[in-house]
């Protein structure tokens, strides 16, 4: 399946883009995370959480094909 992945803040600095589409096989968030760290090794040292369909998810959540986001620490306010 093809998933849209969005990057924000310092994570978008590492990836060099705000959004991309990626073909992934079925699996969990952890699998996608592994792929992304493979593509962007500097992610390994970054603090971020992942959201799927605009909800924070844990590593063992299954991929649904919905929008993914990599979210660095929040700084609102």
């Amino acid at each position, binding site marked *: 399946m093809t998933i849209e992945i*969005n990057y*924000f*803040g*310092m994570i978008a600095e590492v990836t060099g883009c705000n959004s991309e589409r990626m073909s992934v096989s079925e699996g969990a968030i952890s699998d996608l995370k592994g792929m992304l760290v493979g593509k962007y090794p500097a992610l390994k040292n970054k603090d971020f959480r992942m*959201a799927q369909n*605009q909800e924070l998810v844990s590593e063992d959540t299954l991929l649904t094909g919905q929008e993914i*986001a990599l*979210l*660095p*620490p*929040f*700084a*609102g*306010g």
Partner: protein
Amino acid sequence: MNYKNVFIKGAISSEFIGNSIAKHQSKTNIGAHNIFLGQVRADKIEGKVVAAIEYSAYEEMANKNFHEIREATFEKFNLTCMHIYHSLGLVKTGEICLFVFVSSPRRKEVFKALEYVVEAIKADVPVFGKELFEDESHQWKVNS
């Protein structure tokens, strides 16, 4: 689903805040307002001074989170109304980037509600802040 947009382009002006207060004078069941304003500090970090913060957000998720915070707050506290505005883009030091406004018949409610809302915004909403120094370098802000 589309949620109300909480974001404002650039700094939140004092006129905007004054107008927002004026609009509540027709609500004569209100006895107490409590307003929180976040202002960008000229922090000194390793000898460099912050000149501005450039805010970005995962806007769709953030507006959903603001909506959820709003619902939870109305559930917990006896409020007449609540307004939240957050800046996106460049906000210079001394300018206002967050405006939270709660109103109730009674003062006890507004104190508890306002702190709850502000802490929830800090913790739960995907907003990101790039602290721009006077020498044009930057670092990413992290809420404490």
